[in-house]
């Protein structure tokens, strides 16, 4: 390893961000780039641990100590190879991953973790800028055909992997654009869409066929699909949002976060909307219900749409600033985090339950009635229960309410129900250890199989699924396994 003393010599440092004043005026990404030297100093902080928890923390099993060392040595081309060995889309995860790797970084026990994600992004961009990332079509074709339903990160990863194994892959996407949540849901300022298209172009040139505006189950029957393809990979995501069924829910001006975010992305693609369809925050009091990442995305978007005031509320209590003793490393840290959107303004409040929506005569929402709650741990049944604090009711002004409370499960009606897919208790596609559903030849991955999760999980799941499908089709697989060693050609 390069520099064992790096972490004692350098502090964690991120690249500069564009000032919040500037960046809310446009939709471009927030971080500026590092110079070469800074990347290398930051990479040299990696301790090359005997047991690198980052490698376990990363759902993809990214070879983090390896690429850190390569960056430290200035060997960028090897670094992108090492990154690509476990991750199809490092330029995505380098931007929008909550970086569980950094949370598990051993330095974070008593210091700031290595800037793994930013190093990953820097490697990717260096590689793209140097034209090192090219289509790499397979050398031979197996003659097997696979359909991938959904073009989000899971579907794309599965498609690229299956294609590399020599199968002929068709990706079906019901939207007009490819990329799933990457293009539809995630705001431009977090992930510029050109980044996604650039990668999809590579996949297309490698031989994967993409069909947009093709809703499987409607545009093509499942029976057709099953007939035409040797295997099907379901990667349609988790799309049914969690709702807040309280009084006043049917007032206008209350929307699901994803509807809001996707419309903004569509606008940036040049699509226009009728006034009555348009969801805009301009000059409005915006309330976001839900304190997670999607909520933060709404916050950033609302500011860019020139909202007059934005409040984000969360039912759970505000996390502590630092880890509590009962939450030691390497457990995921339960601490207060701010995203870049929070730097740009808005209020955040915690331990708040929304009791009802209040509207005006036109049926438009005007305010929320909320109450403060207390979370109490009951030792008897080892459960934490919520109690309202009497007399703490208050009113929040709201012209636009965005519900960002996550997703429940994939859409059942249509394809899944038609195929008579079995669901697990959470309503996700039930699959066996090899990710196969109850129907022969039909596999599932990503949020459709696991429920809503991170992009990095989706890519990992897509890779894993591709390997399983490969084994299903040809008996064994040279595709890499994820997070475990699998002995190839094990015939004893």
């Amino acid at each position: 390893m390069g520099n064992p003393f790096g972490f004692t010599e350098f502090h964690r440092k991120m690249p500069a961000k564009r000032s919040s004043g500037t960046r809310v005026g446009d939709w471009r990404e927030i971080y500026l780039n590092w110079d070469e030297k800074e990347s290398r100093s930051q990479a040299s902080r990696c301790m090359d641990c005997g047991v690198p928890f980052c490698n376990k923390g990363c759902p993809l099993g990214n070879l983090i100590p390896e690429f850190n060392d390569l960056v430290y040595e200035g060997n960028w081309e090897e670094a992108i190879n090492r990154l690509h060995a476990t991750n199809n889309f490092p330029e995505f995860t380098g931007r929008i991953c909550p970086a569980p790797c950094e949370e598990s970084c051993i330095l974070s026990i008593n210091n700031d973790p290595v800037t793994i994600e930013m190093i990953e992004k820097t490697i990717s961009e260096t590689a793209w800028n140097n034209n090192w990332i090219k289509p790499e079509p397979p050398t031979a074709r197996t003659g097997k055909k696979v359909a991938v339903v959904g073009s989000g990160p899971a579907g794309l990863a599965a498609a690229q992997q299956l294609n590399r194994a020599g199968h002929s892959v068709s990706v079906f996407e019901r939207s007009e654009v490819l990329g799933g949540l990457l293009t539809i849901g995630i705001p431009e300022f977090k992930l510029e869409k050109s980044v996604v298209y650039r990668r999809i172009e590579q996949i297309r040139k490698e031989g994967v066929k993409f069909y947009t505006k093709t809703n499987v189950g409607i545009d093509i029957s499942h029976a057709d699909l099953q007939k035409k393809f040797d295997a099907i990979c379901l990667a349609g995501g988790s799309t049914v949002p969690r709702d807040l069924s309280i009084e006043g829910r049917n007032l206008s001006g209350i929307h699901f976060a994803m509807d809001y975010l996707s419309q903004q992305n569509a606008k940036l693609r040049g699509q226009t909307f009728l006034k009555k369809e348009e969801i805009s925050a301009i000059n409005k009091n915006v309330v976001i219900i839900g304190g997670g990442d999607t909520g933060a995305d709404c916050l950033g978007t609302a500011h860019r749409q020139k909202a007059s005031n934005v409040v984000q509320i969360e039912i759970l209590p505000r996390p502590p600033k630092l880890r509590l003793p009962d939450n030691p490393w390497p457990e995921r840290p339960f601490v207060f985090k701010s995203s870049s959107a929070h730097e740009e303004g808005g209020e955040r409040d915690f331990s708040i339950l929304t009791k009802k929506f209040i509207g005006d005569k036109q049926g438009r929402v005007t305010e929320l009635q909320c109450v403060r709650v207390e979370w109490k741990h009951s030792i008897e049944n080892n459960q934490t229960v919520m109690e309202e604090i009497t007399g703490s009711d208050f009113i929040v002004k709201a012209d636009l309410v965005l519900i960002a409370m996550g997703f429940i499960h994939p859409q059942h009606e249509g394809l899944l129900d038609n195929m008579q897919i079995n669901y697990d208790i959470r309503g996700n596609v039930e699959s066996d250890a090899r990710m196969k559903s109850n129907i022969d030849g039909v596999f599932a991955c990503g949020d459709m199989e696991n429920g809503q999760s991170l992009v990095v999980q989706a890519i990992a799941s897509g890779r894993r699924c591709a390997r399983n499908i490969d084994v299903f089709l040809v008996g064994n697989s040279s595709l890499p396994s994820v997070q475990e060693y699998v002995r190839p050609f094990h015939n004893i």
Partner: protein
Amino acid sequence: MPLNEDVHLPDFSGVEKHGLYIPDLEHDSCGVGVVANIKGKPSHTIIEQGLTVLSNLSHRGATGSDQKTGDGAGILVQTPHKFFKKSMKHLGITLPNQNQYGVGMCFLPQRKDLYDLTINAIESSANKNDFQIIGWRKVPLNKEVIGVSARAIMPKIQQVFLSGPPNVTGDDLERKLYLIRKMAEREVSDKITDANKKELLREFYICSMSSRTVVYKGMLMPDQLGSFFHDLNDGDFVSVFSLVHSRFSTNTLGSWKLAHPYRFLAHNGEINTVRGNRNWMQSREKSLSSKYFGNDIENIKPICESDDPSDTASLDNVFELLRMTGRSVDHVAAMMMPAAWHGNKSMPKEVRDFYEYHGNIMEPWDGPAMVVFTDGNHLGAVLDRNGLRPFRYLVTKDDLLIMASETGVLPIEPSKVKIRSRLSPGKMFLVDFKEKRIVGTEEVLKRLASKKPYSNWLNKNRSILSKITTPNIYSDLDRETLLTKQITFGYTQEDLQVLIKPMSITGHQPQGSMGNDAPLAVLSDKPQNLFAYFKQSFAQVSNPPLDAIREELVTQRAVPVGRRPNIFEETPRHCRTLRIDHPIMTDNELATVKSIKIKGIKTALISTTFEVSKGVNGLEASIKRIQKEAVAAIEDGCTILILSDREVNKRNSFIPSLLSTGAVHHHLIKQKIRAQADLIVESGEPREVHHFATLLGYGASAINPYLAFETIEGLREISGVENEIPNRAQAEENYREAIEEGIVKTMAKMGISTIQSYTGAQIFEALGLSKKLVDEYFTWTISRIDGIGLEEIVQDNILWHSTAYSKDNIPSNLKLDIGGLYFWRSTGERHMWEPETLSLLQNATKRNDRLMFEKFEHASNIEQEKHLTIRNMLELAYSEPVPIDEVEPVIDIVKRFATGAISLGSISREAHETLAIATNRINARSNTGEGGEDPERFFHDPNGDSRSSAVKQIASGRFGVTTNYLINAKDIQIKMAQGAKPGEGGEIPGRKISEYIAYIRKTTPGIELISPPPHHDIYSIEDLAQLIYDLKNVNPSARIHVKLVSVAGVGIIAAGVAKGKGDVVLISGDSGGTGASPLSSIRHAGLPWELGLSETQQVLVANGLRNRITIQTDGQIKTSKDVAIAALMGAEEWGVATGALVAMGCIMLRKCHLNTCSVGIATQNPELRNLFKGTPESVINYFIFLAEGLREHMARLGFRKVNDMVGRVDKLRVRDNITHWKAKTLNLSPILHKAKVLDTDHAFCCVPQDHKLSESIDNKLIAICETAINENETVSSTLEINNTNRAVGANLSGLVAKKTGETGLPNGSINITFRGSAGNSFGAWLARGITFTVEGDANDYFGKGLSGGRLISKPDRDSILVAEQNIIIGNVALYGATGGEAYIRGIGGERFCVRNSAATAVVEGIGDHGCEYMTGGRVVILGETGRNFGAGMSGGIAYVWDPNLSFSKNFNGELSDLLDLDENSNDSDDLREIIRNHYIYTNSTVADNLLTNWKSRIKEFKKVLPREYANILQKKVQGSPDYANT
């Protein structure tokens, strides 16, 4: 003592057949003595004196469980003709004249039919050679004096007298007698059946058969010899010399025949290369022919007695053969045990050439050896090149020569002594009774060197590869094929990044830390190369590892290759060889060999590939093919066979290089033509040190790792701007140097100095290979639990090959496997410590959460298909449960835990003290490690906590080992080896030596510390017994504890430890931790504790020794199930180190050696130390969890007491659900074999050792000194002393330290003068305020550990010797001294002041390796020094009086500078003061002379000053630093 008739005989038949005991691994060591009349005048007095010498060497021998049965004693003398004539006359038989007949001293079976069989064999062999049996004589014996065990297996002892044709005399007569003996032995051996084997092997043996000499020996104690054999007391029983020997064997499965002397020699030491030497002898058998034997040559084969496990027996067999075929005894000795000639400039060229020439004929018999030999007319002695055995001699005015392992073995009037001297390393000594004089080394060698024109022959015939190789020309690298090859040969990313790249940059082996927690090769899912199944063996106790770094001058890398003609002749043809100076060959060197055109050298290329599609059959067929090709090539006259896998391609894969090498090597040995050609391996497979070491070990003379070289170039081409790889030639040179350095170190671990004798020595144990495979291709290698065969090997091979040549080349795949062996990766090799287990244990212990601990245990006790260790394959056989409240309480169980020996220095002060506090609170034991301990910690803290480690370790570095340290120990642990790097010394990088660490260790801050690989006071088992005795004397209340590492034969060593009176023996597994160690040692040396522990339990129980000694085990024990298994296998105490560190926050960064531990544990960096967050509570929680878990297992197993479960392997069983394709080939039943416990015995420790302290002279001393200790009075006295008074002063000093701590008594409080020869360890750990003077001389370890006392040694007042020309003290004086003074008027032995850290010493001449590893103090040498002075000396100052300007050639300047002095020098006054003291205390004439002419004399001094130490001295501020806040 009444004879205890109930004594049971040791019975090994069970454990040998079903268990882990291997009799071949028995060791012995001993005391040797000679008394001779140089003028050749025989007398009976010589015999009596010999017996006296023998009984004064008693303490170098041992007894077993039967206190009256010795390990063996014997005497070799000239044939006492007058006595025999008289005795035979009583039987009515007239003997011919002196030297006209032979006498055979025979051990014969007791059973009548077997007795007859052997008698007939001897008689018929005699008849076949035209000899007649004159008669048989029953040797009169006094059986009453010997032990029951000895008597039970005693053979009949008879002498046969035989005579031949009258014209057969002199050497011819000897040869005939030799032939008769060999034929008789062969005839008996041919008649061995299963029914008679045991008795014939045990009881039939011909001790000697000669006209010149006779051997009396047996399974006796030294003082029994004379009374047992009546003959020896007869006045007519006379000889010119007597050669006596007392044996210390590692166990009591005694054997009469294993006693020394053998026919030609007696030996103290061990031949480490004996396996290889025997193989080479067998290889030569076909080419043997001698004019002296003609067709009879067939009748003397096999040369080495095949059923005799003893190295000495084989040494003697070959010695005898070479003597019988025409060489003189001195010639034979020089040839078999050459001095370190290679690169020795001070040796005359003709002598070097003599040695090099003979190197072409015979490889050295390497190992610590002091051999005394005789053919009846000459008597000589030779000491091995390392000089690791002591040998002192004196000559009196009346021509009596006394030489022995110790001085003082025969009382001689001081006024009669003419010479007192010693044998130095590599030197020889000959008494020629015809010339009636002693012939010294120089003369002996000069005579030998001029026998033939050796130099001339060499110049004309021998080629040197480096001189005929043209410079490197490289072809361009083809990256595509490089990658394919790397995959084919199973390279991983780690091979490139962790091993090959660093080596090509630094020229050194890569280092690592923590232990090996990956699975055994046979349990892994990943494909494994064959090397991974071989574990390096190493020296511990019975022989010392060598110091390949500091004592490099004795190592030799060059090997001659080519054909070895008949060894009985010496012709120019014998050196028509190619000398390869580097066994790792570059591509170019190999190309040169391939195209060589030199007379007498012819090469053949044999392709070692097989057709991969044919699978195992293809592999087997190819092995047969290469064996056949090898034989054909030799028949065709080839002298070098190159085994090459260059032809690997899509169709053909490689035969594992170790397999092809072993297969050819052993096939040629079996064909007895191995000596006709040598093997060179050209392979893509070997890449790390261990690979090369195994290839050499199984017969390769040199190796060309072409793919490793190509890989370096591949890495170089893509390397970034940091960590650049140098140019190609330099990078290859660096790599080669790193590998060779590693090989030399690997050899040194086993005590071997030359690659030539390492070749074929097979110093490995196979783990996980089937017996069938091993017997076929790696014959004589130990493989105890069976395992995989060719079928599984081929599967791994196919996997690599098919991956490499796979059609589906998936873009962006990681082309080479990630590895994950050294550093955990999620897709890499499995590990015991991985994120899940680490976080579970940390959180469980931090939160005191038993449920989480159970989760940890569940994750760790890996089940089903994920075995990592042997114990993972076992389960507890629960039955007959008892209620848990009846099981002994946690509070008692936790006392049995120890943490590992982790030194302060390796870990931070905070971490070290936390461990001590935690263990002391629960009465468990923490361990200082080898770094000493701050004396402040010996006092309790105000809150009642104690930071004093219960176990104080004493390792080879002896850091901070003071009397006060030892007296404050509950256990004193002698570290013989460490699991992570057995056979190597501790290492701590300079960056970890802070001011505080240096203060504790008494060394210099910032300077790397390497401990010597051996304890310089333990080169063999009797030395260990001596150190145990020394330590027990200092602190009689401490348990003396010996730490060993698991390896085949460790049980036998443990038996030796028990006999040497150790109280505890620790069997460490191979997987234990380390602060810094070469990666190849962490991975490849030693064996799991399951094997070592089981073997130890089996051997100790069978020996009847188990109840005297406690067994502890450690090595990645981490769960209560591990503890339960350890107890059931025989350990009543357990060590848990890594787990305890994890409980304190260790996250297995594996950066201990870099000082960058980010959690403040393994670092001395103050900022990082601040990050330490560990608490005693977490550690205590861990131990309590383990104890609670163990209690639950005990309840379910039905045990109420831990002692009840010790050794109960019947409560263990192998899981029945093992389906792992490799794991299921193992046979664990030898581990689970339960040795039969004798009725009177227990399987756990319950009888204290009798250390015989009551017999010590210190009892008298303590009585004399009582008033000095208690009432501050001054005491003086004079006492007699002799060599059996050992460790004199240690007990007294211990008492002083107990009373006064570090301070000691006021100067001059106690003054004792001793007259005579002091025994070993005189003045050991002598405390401040005590002055001991010995008038006479002293043995080894004079002033060992000197802790402030003053020692004076001077010749007896009646002596007529010139003091400065004679030796007065033995080897290894002042080892590890931490204070005090020593004034020695006379010459000292080897390794004077090794590891001295503070004492001031004056001596008038010393042997080799003076001031080695010294870190402090002042040493003044007023005379000559031997070679290699100041090696590893990093502190202190030496002043050497060098009037003849000869010192610089002996000076090792690696770390020090040589400075001139004059009267204006700053140290002039100091030096004069020291010399003045020397004069005052000893009356030295040398000192007197120097002081008189000081101004001119001081200019003749040289000052040796370590460079870094000089810097520190300059910086040093006055006054001692305040360490309280460090």
